[in-house]
């Protein structure tokens, strides 16, 4: 599968946390191509099941990739213009002069307007504008606007996905649609190889507002192992050397208290057997990914995190290397095909009692 067209569809679809319908329809179709069953759960997660070859009851693995994106929400109408608040977190400085889509009674292209330099005092020109002072303009008269937009309507960025040179691509919502694409690749690869475990590929909702989709879907599925796939910080100017990873040089695998050390090591071993370049990403604190929610579901689930490096996170021009996404698809598929009856036992904590 050429994932670039899929990435474009996913990136350009809207799906703010809690309002993922448009992207969900795409994911349902794409996951469905290589799954035995696809359903939508109560919270709106897409749950695709690909059955394993072992006899029942089979162990299961859950892949969690969140499909929601950050955005804006209309807070007031004033003289034909729209005030807004943030849903998730943009740096206010990237909002000025951006194009948006206001999801009113119909989709309305709009502009976060920037006053021209001609009318600004020097001191004003050099200051960023906080988002509560910005206005969205959809080019309608106050009367027309009041008929099609109301407080609480959502706003997404209006930006086309673009392929760059060097196998890179940029667009909105690539956090975390790149991981959704990686999960789709994994399902496709699994349809060509034999695997014993059941695999649930889950595109989760509401990650950006507190991992809600992962909480509910992990509880519902009770998997034996959970792997979240998300994005991490790629190296770029003005970012620290620590906590950042080269674009195009492979995914990261999380280590630290959120992740099961033996599961993490097993993923590292798989990468090594594939001669795939991966990096350990230390997380000393409780992080903000779906793995954190899966880990403490019910009586606890061994959890891991694979991350795809991404530049300009939480902007409309998030930038990734397509190769890194393909690597994650392959890594997941290879790991899953290697899972056997003994794997769960191999994750048990060594109590050191054998020596007595």
């Amino acid at each position, binding site marked *: 599968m050429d994932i670039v067209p899929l990435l474009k569809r996913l990136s350009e679809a809207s799906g703010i946390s809690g309002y993922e319908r448009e992207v969900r329809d795409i994911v349902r179709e794409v996951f469905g191509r290589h799954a035995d069953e696809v359903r939508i759960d109560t919270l709106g997660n897409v749950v695709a099941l690909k059955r394993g070859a072992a006899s029942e009851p089979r162990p299961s693995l859950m892949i969690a990739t969140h499909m929601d994106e950050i955005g804006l929400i209309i807070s007031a109408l004033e003289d034909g213009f729209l005030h807004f608040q943030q849903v998730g977190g943009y740096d206010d400085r990237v909002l000025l002069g951006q194009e948006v889509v206001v999801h009113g009674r119909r989709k309305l292209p709009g502009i976060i307007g920037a*006053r021209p330099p001609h009318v600004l005092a020097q001191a004003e020109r050099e200051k960023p504008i906080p988002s509560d002072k910005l206005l969205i303009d959809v080019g309608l008269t106050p009367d027309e606007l009041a008929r099609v937009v109301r407080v609480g309507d959502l706003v997404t960025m209006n930006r086309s996905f673009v392929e760059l040179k060097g196998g890179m691509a940029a667009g909105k919502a690539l956090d975390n649609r790149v991981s959704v694409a990686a999960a789709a690749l994994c399902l496709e690869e699994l349809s060509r190889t034999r695997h014993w475990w059941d695999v649930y590929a889950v595109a989760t909702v509401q990650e950006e507002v507190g991992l809600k989709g992962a909480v509910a879907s992990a509880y519902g599925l009770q998997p034996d192992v959970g792997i979240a796939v998300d994005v991490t910080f790629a190296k770029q100017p003005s970012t620290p050397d620590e906590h950042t990873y080269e674009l195009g040089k492979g995914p990261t695998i999380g280590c630290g208290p959120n992740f099961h050390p033996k599961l993490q090591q097993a993923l590292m071993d798989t990468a090594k057997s594939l001669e795939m370049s991966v990096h350990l990403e230390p997380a000393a604190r409780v992080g903000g990914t779906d793995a954190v929610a899966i880990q403490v579901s019910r009586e606890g689930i061994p959890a891991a995190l694979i991350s795809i490096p991404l530049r300009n996170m939480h902007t409309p021009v998030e930038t990734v290397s397509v190769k890194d996404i393909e690597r994650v698809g392959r890594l997941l598929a290879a790991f899953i095909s290697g899972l056997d009856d003994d794997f769960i036992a191999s994750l048990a904590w060594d109590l050191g009692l054998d020596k007595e």
Partner: protein
Amino acid sequence: MLLEDLSHAFGPSGCEDEVRRLLARALRDKVDDLQTDALGNLIAFKQGTGTQPRLKVMVDAHMDEVGLMITRIEKNGLLGFRVVGGILDRLLPAKGVVIGQKRLPGVIAAPPVHLTKPEQRRQVLPIDQLAVDIGANSEDEARELVKIGDYAVFDTRFQVLGEDGLHAVKGKAFDDRMGCAVASALADGEYAVDLYLSFSTQEEMGLRGAMVAAYRIGPDLAFAFEGTVCDDIPKKEDVSPTTEMGKGPAITVMDRSFVADQRLIHLLIEVAEANGIPYQFKQPGVGSTDAGAIHLSRAGVPAVTVSVPCRYIHTPVSMASLNDLDHTVALMRATLAALPEKWRAA
């Protein structure tokens, strides 16, 4: 729609080639002569139907837009840049651009919010800390695709936003492709006067194209057309909107570059009122237009500027009302039709 093609055309100051070719194609069958000059101005001539000696009327619109220029290629393959014309640094982060007429796509990088401190977020990122990312992994890769001095523009698409009401459109470079659209539309008519349609270069660099075009033409009077500042968003302080969208063509009385000819202002008002065309006055003192260069050409030229109000000029995407564009064209057709009699009477 010609305006759509004009908006999409690549034309920062000094690199107006695409706009020039687009206009030449659009005008060649409607005018009697097409010329270019040393600065790249495109001058179309439409002979009048009146008897000699005919009044020489120059109408001007500038082809250039504000943009970017690549000024350094870094070891990591990222591209440093400078602005061409007046674009504020604070508008630059996280925007899409295209480099050169081949339109190599790139994005202006912005550090992730998670890795910036609150005090940093209260500062505008200065342009020398920004870079265009084209996906090149090294200086060598980047050099194969881009060279120092290449121009870039924002990758904004033109779109009609509403079919009624304000009939708004959005796109890039409305300053001054709106003016180009007005001037081009005048080529469809027949007038008693000799009409010189001058599409000038380098307005954003200080009215440089219009300066030499006016000298070459030597007009008796001149109209400059602009997509001008419109600042009619709701504001707490009581300050002028400069112009208002949807209220018709804006007539300049005075700006930073010139004082408009009183006779021409009165002529425009008289024609607008006789034809029921809405009009407004642009707040004095804001901006400069080609009329500033034209009115001082040779021994002086009576000149006035007529503008389509455009919100958010000098940013990646501006907005205007097609009603205002239509009314500006109607006002100018009727004004040209009133010449030379009304001018002789003045």
